[in-house]
């Protein structure tokens, strides 16, 4: 089947088998390997991405179901090296150890803060209860989300996807590395 969708602000088109899972499309065809796979039962959340800003488990969707929609993966969060506040919070609060759950956790947290900019601890824990972390015990993840919430309330939410690229292009300052979100099959561009 032919599909066209947006991934991290870039339009992509592909011919895919109807049964191809979105997570495999992202990982294997677009080589966006930040999105991980930790289970076969849509339980662990390692594969969490944003679908039109909403957190979804990309192992629970076919890629064809994403047709016409906008996907944001972890690679789309800091296209020019400017970390998203949630990424900063994770770093600031040591909210990761092995890092395998981290992309999914970060995206689920962004989705939460988009709909609820000032969550309570219980709201954070509930919102992240579809994401398993085997290393950290979650306390620092909760702190990271609170840290990001504070920062975002002070400075306004960070855009994701296309918005992030536009914002990064508009912002002066250092630009580390290329556009992580625009590699591989959908045509690596230098982003500048």
């Amino acid at each position: 089947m032919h599909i066209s969708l947006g991934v991290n602000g870039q339009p992509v088109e592909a011919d895919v088998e109807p049964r191809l899972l979105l997570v495999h499309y992202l990982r294997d065809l677009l080589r966006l390997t930040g999105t991980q796979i930790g289970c076969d039962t849509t339980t662990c959340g390692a594969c969490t991405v944003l679908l039109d800003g909403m957190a979804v488990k990309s192992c629970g969707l076919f890629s064809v179901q994403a047709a016409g929609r906008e996907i944001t993966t972890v690679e789309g969060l800091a296209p020019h090296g400017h970390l998203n506040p949630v990424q900063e919070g994770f770093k600031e609060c040591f909210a990761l150890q092995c890092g395998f759950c981290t992309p999914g956790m970060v995206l689920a947290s962004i989705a939460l803060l988009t709909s609820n900019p000032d969550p309570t601890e219980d709201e954070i824990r509930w919102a992240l209860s579809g994401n398993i972390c085997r290393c950290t015990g979650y306390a620092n993840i909760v702190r990271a989300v609170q840290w990001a919430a504070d920062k975002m309330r002070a400075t306004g939410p960070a855009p994701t996807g296309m918005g992030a690229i536009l914002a990064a292009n508009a912002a002066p300052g250092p630009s580390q590395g290329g556009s992580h979100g625009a590699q591989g099959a959908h045509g690596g561009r230098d982003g500048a």
Partner: protein
Amino acid sequence: MGAVMAPEAARKPGIGYSLPRREDDRFIRGQGTFVADVTAPRMAHMAVLRSPLARARIRSINAARAFTLPGVLVVITGELLARRNLAWMPTLSGDVQSVLAVDEVRFQGQEVACVVAEDPYTAHDALQLIEVDYEPLPALVDPTEALSPDAPLVRADKPDNRCYEWETGDLEATDHAFQEAAHVTTLDTYYPRCHPAPLECCACFADVDPDEGRARIYLTSQAPHAHRTILAQLMGLPEQQVQIISPDIGGAFGNKVPLYPGYVVTVVASFLLRRPVRWIEDRTGNLLSTGFARDYRMHGELALDAGGRMIGLRVRLLSDHGAFFADAQPSKFRAGLFHIVTGSYDIPVAHISATGVYTNKAPGGVAYRCSFRVTEASYLIERLVTTAAYELGIDPAELRRRNFILPDQFPYRSATGFSYDSGDYRAALDLALEKAGYEELRKEQEEGRRKGRLVGVGMSSFTEVAGAGPSKDYDLIGIKMFDSAELAIGPTGKAILKLGVQSQGQGHETTFAQIVAHELGISPADVIVHHGDTDNSPYGLGTFGSRSTPTGGAATAVVCRRLVDKAKKIAAYLMEVDDDDVAWEPGRFYLRSAEDREVTIQEAAAAAYTNPPDGMEPGLDAVSYYDPPQLTFPFGTYVAAVEVNPETGEWKVLKFVAVDDCGVRINPMIVDGQIMGGLTEGYAIAAMQRIDFDAQGASSGSNFEDYLVPTAWETPRFELHEMVTPCPHHPLGAKGVGESPTVGSPAAFVNAVVDALVHLGVRNIDMPLTSDKVWEAIEDSRPRKAAG
């Protein structure tokens, strides 16, 4: 104390400083490289066909239909492997394990065949087309039946289903102590089979060039060098031609110590196809077939005198190893380091005997976030002591205090022969009780009981053992359990550190740089740490059993000091004085008689390359293989307060206070992170993680819907406190920490839940303490109405 601590001013940012992790940047951007992320042109994909039955004879395997599928490249069966003498492989415990079943399958989920195809979907489709004709056989599921003469035989080469008999301690003296005892407390408990379940499953990427005889293998491995040696021998490849790369690893917790059939077949497939092949295990395969943990039936007896002093301990163990003995125990110790079962207590005599049996279950018995069997041992003694306290009518804290090994008894020789390094057990208990508000909790419990509230307080004053281990006693498959560090300081004074240990989230790239920074007085930013690639690191046994800091950390300190010794000669040469006239403090050499005349470590390093003294070998690098003189003994006390719902048996944690003493802390933030994570796993084991089997040997825990791991929602809040009693024999005074919380906490939770019900007569509930079991214990304790 032999511990060397830099003066306060020099500590930042070396040891004792919560340096942010340099690993984090790549992970938060999704730029980590896990094995499943590794790819190559022409890469093929492998999928594994597993047995649906726990025990069956394989009459035939017909893969013809699989080949009808376009894109299928090869189907590998046990028969094909047998022709190359690869159908069986060695385990790290000196047994053998089936790579792909040839004649018989011996557990549900066992690897039967592998398909390699152009893409993973095709490989999985092809699995459905392989016809395996099984003749079901009765399975041996219950280990207590394994030794009975009419039990089904798991292995023809193991005629009585017996894996081993093992004992330690003094039987006669122990029996004598029990004759003298005023009181004997007995506990029978089962530490259930559970699975480490790191979030990343196992995976392998193999690129073998048969012409060159060269194999480059990415592996989810906690022990890349050991895996290289075994794979090289198994495959008949010269070891120097085998490169194992263990890149970023998504958690391991003991699960990634063993060698797995999937790895071997991936390598074989790459060899056969002359193409890179990648296999990514799915969660079902991971939970069904890879290294499970525990599965220990324990009978413990504690002898006490009239004053409540412990005078003897007797333990009998029955260990279920599944179909293959594939733990990674030190060869000498079949029950691992279970010797630690005397715990924090001065028990003069003890005897332990263990029987290991084979059953039709997945192999394992891996050390799930603990040194070999330490979790089981710690659980048993902490449950026994608590039970004894109830029987004697003594407060559990008081009974512990009466029996602790005292600070002036160190080094302390335990009844099972361990030499404990250092400790202050009473201080840890007192601190934990104070922080938990023990007295108030007891009052709350008392008042609650009057109103029908069930509040319980449990504690665990664990001592664990880490850092295996001294070469006189410890080896894996004959290789001594040293570990290594290689350090090179270049002409510009920057350092490259290569390690034999490997990281799965522990943050070695940061902490080991801190050790070098601390020792040399340079910035951690000037140190890069390499590990996990056997072509680019000295031989070591890897990271498990909290051994990285005790062994690899010590090796790093030692190698730094070796380079400082050499650099000192260079400094003396540059200052044109005798070596003895020169003193060292981190960062610089100076003249004793004129302290402001100095040569920095950077200047000495430069001279090592540009201007070495006559007769001195140029360069500034060295390698250290550190053979620890002793094990290390981290300790602490955990206090849990819980409330049990009398109607449903559900329980929640009201408070959890942890006091940990792991000796000197290199990066306190990382230590706290390890403790938080370990407590969460300890809670999970106590509360929810269980893998059961039905009478046919079918597993109940093959996915995260059935095998429960806690999310942020269920995980209790933990309050952490620290003590520092340096390890006297470790160059940095460190003991290791990754596992204390998993070792110590399950008993605290169970003690707390039992404590909530103790007035009802409940003395034991086996883990996991699911609500149905707790509810049943409450129901059973109610006075029964007469029947009819």
